[in-house]
């Protein structure tokens, strides 16, 4: 009598169970690695974005002669809360112009603006100037550049140094940082 050839049903079932288990483990590892990669990329991106925003704002505050925004001395007074945008005189330029940092949704913009009266558009005037009839000057936007994304909060407080607290959020990752910036010409 010839010995039986092939596999028994029990052997096939065992092999299938092992294969399914292995596939399950491999799929879990793949899912985990995809999640880990995504979180790692988000964390690195937020860290780098916060660093670049801080550096950009530092350069402007260092050189400015005048912080236009009326910043509160601290962050904790509910009657005088920190500001969500900052306007300062551009210390890099010979022309009288202002830099404004403001948030639009999750984006942070750096806007350069000049003020003038329609009668003399070539003459730049201070942001709070008034003509002889008490009219405010017109605003001309010179630049409006995106500085950073994923901003969930940015607040400014303190006169000199100016404190800045930044919160960035992407997917489930939250990155919060804080610093203070001293204006040499303030």
């Amino acid at each position, binding site marked *: 009598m010839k010995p039986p050839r092939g596999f028994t049903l029990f052997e096939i079932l065992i092999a299938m169970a092992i294969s399914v288990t292995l596939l399950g483990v491999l799929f879990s590892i793949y899912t985990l690695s995809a999640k*880990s990669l995504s979180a790692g990329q988000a964390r690195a991106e937020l860290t780098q974005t916060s660093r670049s925003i801080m550096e950009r704002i530092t350069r402007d505050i260092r050189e400015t002669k005048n912080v236009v925004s009326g910043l509160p001395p601290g962050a904790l007074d509910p009657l005088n809360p920190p500001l969500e945008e900052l306007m300062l005189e551009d210390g890099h330029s010979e022309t009288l112009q202002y830099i404004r940092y403001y948030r639009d949704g999750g984006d942070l913009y750096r806007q350069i603006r000049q003020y003038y009266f329609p009668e003399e558009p070539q003459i730049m005037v201070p942001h709070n100037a008034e003509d002889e009839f008490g009219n405010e000057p017109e605003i001309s936007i010179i630049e409006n550049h995106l500085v950073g994304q994923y901003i969930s909060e940015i607040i400014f407080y303190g006169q000199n140094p100016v404190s800045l607290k930044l919160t960035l959020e992407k997917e489930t990752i939250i*990155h919060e*940082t804080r610093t203070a910036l001293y204006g040499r010409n303030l």
Partner: protein
Amino acid sequence: MTVLAIGILGLLRAFPQATTAERTLELEAVANHLAQEKMESFQSLAYEDIAVGMLESGVRVDTDTASPFFIFTRTTSVSYVDQNLAESPADLNLKRITITISWPHPAGTDTSTATLVTIRSK
């Protein structure tokens, strides 16, 4: 099967390590900003007004336990230095300001530090 199991276990161990490394880098960046925050407060002071000695040691950057900066502590010291930047007992018109921010390592084993040093002259 054994080789496969060892491979899978090795792979699984890599994930927490990668996450820890990324978190460490993030905390270092925040610590540098917090050190800069303190350093900037010296910029507004005249040379004579910068006190010499250990100004603070292990002080919490933020006392609010809910704050993300609560884990960071700060040590600030100022010393006289000579022209070779070696410590000097006398005032030679140079001061070295050292700010160290410490925080628990994300792996929970150790303490990490970031140090910022600057020299102020008269």
